[in-house]
């Protein structure tokens, strides 16, 4: 892990009408590490992702990627700065096959790097094998079960060769063995030097793979720290299980 975090979010505030979705939220993610982002439904996790990738303009606050302030940038420029994400509500290209979904991303990446030698087909094949989609590579994505469809989103995000990967509930819809394989994949990605931010309801998975966990509740950061510490944190336990449980 390096000292300066690859992703540095400072004091981000978002309001929808009178509702405060995020209140002065800070979040850091280091290259080579996995940062978990957990919290009850409606805590603001997806909104924070939207702010980081530029789909939601924050009222206040800064987003830095690799030391560069990207707060005012359009989403596609942030992607070119090394950011990729998956969506909680799947945003796959339903008119295309699994392979094409990943190939489009590889082609877009190749195009803005002006790398004529790169072959999107080869990149797509490598990624399909890596995330384990070989058997369904030519199926249309809208015919896949949710667990596999989420893997396609992960594969598509990887095809844009990110340095920072935001995963929004990638493991929901996966069975136990799929989740185990997915945890291995996540650790591999971190070892490759990616900074991964993981939003996930499967708390077991989060505590198993993450180096650092951030807990959000009603738009506020409740706690940040290594998994072992978070598991013992009273405020977190209260937020998840309610008052009076120890």
């Amino acid at each position, binding site marked *: 892990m390096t000292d300066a975090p690859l992703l540095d979010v400072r004091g981000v505030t978002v309001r929808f009408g009178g509702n405060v979705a995020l209140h002065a939220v800070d979040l850091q993610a280091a290259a080579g590490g996995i940062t978990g982002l957990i919290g009850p439904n409606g805590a603001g996790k997806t909104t924070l992702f939207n702010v980081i*990738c*530029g*789909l*939601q303009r924050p009222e206040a606050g800064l987003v830095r990627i690799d030391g560069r302030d990207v707060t005012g940038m*359009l*989403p*596609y420029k*942030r*992607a*070119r700065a090394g*950011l*990729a*994400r998956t*969506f909680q*509500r*799947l*945003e*796959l*290209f*339903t*008119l*295309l096959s699994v392979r*094409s*979904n990943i*190939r*489009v*991303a590889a*082609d*877009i*990446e190749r195009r*803005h790097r002006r790398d004529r030698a790169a072959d*999107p087909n080869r990149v797509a094949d490598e990624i399909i094998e890596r995330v384990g989609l070989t058997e*369904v590579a*030519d*199926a*249309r994505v*809208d*015919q896949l079960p949710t667990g596999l469809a989420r893997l396609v989103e992960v594969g*598509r*995000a990887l*095809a*844009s060769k990110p340095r920072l990967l935001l995963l929004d509930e990638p493991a929901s819809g996966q069975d136990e063995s799929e989740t185990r394989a997915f945890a291995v994949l996540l650790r591999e990605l971190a070892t490759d030097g990616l900074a991964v931010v993981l939003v996930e309801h499967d708390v077991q998975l989060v505590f198993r793979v993450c180096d650092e966990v951030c807990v959000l509740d009603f738009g506020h950061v409740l706690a940040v720290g290594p998994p072992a510490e978070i598991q013992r944190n009273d405020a977190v336990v209260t937020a998840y299980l309610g008052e009076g449980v120890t």
Partner: protein
Amino acid sequence: MDKFLALTFAGLCTGGIYAIAASGLVLTYTTTGVFNFAHGAIGMLGAFMYWQLHVHWGMPTWVAFLAVLLVIAPAFGASLELGIMRRLQGTSEATQLVVTVSVLAASLGLAQWLWSPQEAHPLSHFWEGNKISIGPVIVTWHSVFAFILAIAIALGLRLLLFRTRSGITMRATVDDRPLVTLNGGKPDRSALLAWAIGCSLAALAGILAAPDQGLSPVLALLIVNAYAAAVIGRLRSLPLTFLGALILGLADAYGTGYINLQNDYLNGFRSAIPIIILFVALIAMPQSRLRGHSAARSRERMPMPSWGGSLVACGCVVVVTAVITTMITDSNALTLTRVFAVGVIALSLVPLVGYAGNISLCQMSFAGIGAITMAHLGASGSPIGLVWAAFAAGIVGALVALPTLRLSGIYLALATAAFAVVLDEWLFNLPNFNIGPFDVKLFELGSVPVARLHVPLVDPASQKSFLVVLAVVFCVCALLVVAIRRSYFGERLLAMKDSPAACATLGLNLRFTKLAVFALSAAMAGVGGALYGSTLGTVTPDRFSFFESLPLLLLAVVGGIGTAGSALFTGLVLYGIPLVSASVVWFANVGRVLPGAMGIGLGKNPNGVVPDVAEQLSPLRRATGILVALIVAIVGLVIAAKLDLLENWPFAFAVTGVFVAASAVADRRRLLGEDEEPLEWVGVDRAFTSDDVRRLDAELGLEKVAR
């Protein structure tokens, strides 16, 4: 000063009429979520109905007036809602748009059918001749009446929406339809009410506007101006809409009063003012968030065309055309050339609308630019003219796309419509002018001749060889569209249509991609327009008006906008029907309404006609024996026709019959065939077809259950 005051009063009154029309539009949009493109046409039909009752059948003014407003128009609106709009719940924005545009096109056709455009339909003002003076200005009672009505309606709607139970249900329906149902509301009933009131307001605006504007189908366009007011109100706010309508009315009045109408350059500008305001209002819309998937998934399919299949299809088109030339007269051959010319214009919609999902209502305007470029730069019919046409139209396409890049859905459709109307109201009617060193020549205040496309080694005088040339050019363009679909660019377009948000987070510059596809599509439309011009001989602006773009889009969507074949379908319906109606007279009027009627039926089959036919014929492709028999039979029929054993019509029926029979035999054989793949693999290694569904039903015994 007096002139200014007089214009101000006139402007306020026109503004009142716009306000009535626009508030009806906003009402239907806020309560049903459907932007009614046909609103203006409904107003026009209402005015015609009033003329029919009052002038033609001699009913007293107020009886006719109230009959239209309180009975006919609301009934029309209610039946639109019941018969058409209700089924659109949960369909894509594009389908909704095409259906309302279809209602517009069908209404225009209906008006021309029932009330001949050759006859005048004069309507007098209310209290004709009565005037009052307000200070130094004299105003007609009619105008004062219009303005008072506008204010009363604005107040009434406000009360309806905010103070009555049905109004509150209406507003709640837009927010969350299922929730309203769960709470005991009846969303269907409020939609019905909204459509009834909306149509009544449209009719009122039409009746008030007709005496000054003249009663003709063009009245539909006048009320299109009211769209600008609705957009200023962001399609939601009634007070802002009212304000927007007044601004429009005033701009219109001052334009009429202060712009020198003797000046050829500014004459058309006046009528384009409201549309320019619409364009500006659209561009000033606040940035909307990038769209992800809509909640309702469409059942669209977008099969990848194979090179083999596409080449065979193109070969068939050329061969069939060549055979047909030997059997028809010269003048029919000339009509058929337009099938292919218009076909190329329709092809330009496939990448833009079909792949990228951007709706354009100005494709004929791009075609018009292509046609005049061909007229001025392709003087002797040289193919270089086509290159210039593509270039000029492509640049204009990019210029149109540039300010509208942020828009999508209905806003983009409105912006392209506004551009089309500005062109045919103003720019196409300009005399020649200079921009720096460039001489710009347009339609030269009338018509310009376009030379016929001249290709080396082809007899330029023969209509029939011209027909074959155009068939070949069409096929080349169709193969280009296939190549786009098969390229990475094509995949990017489909991805962008599916989820712009996902594309942006992958690093795709959406604006640039959109600009590129707009320019490409405009260039292709320009080529089509140049060809169309050279089939017409001389071109006039009305061939390329906004209203000509509507059936084009409708038919392309009905044909199956995702496939190049839909373009041929479009051409055949537009120029094949005139051929049929030449021999069957009553068909001419049906032809006027047909494109609209087809579009209205779209809700049922979003994939379109051509993919359906292709699916029907697909068993044939694998049955070699039947295919050979089919070809032998058709060659036999052609020979019989050549030997005058068969007339043209029996020949056409015989060919169709042989086709249907062959396809039925092949289908039967395939169903009995033993090398079928196991059902559990269907859908994984190839897409589901309706046949598979039937097979599945048969295996599960569902058909018996259904019976």
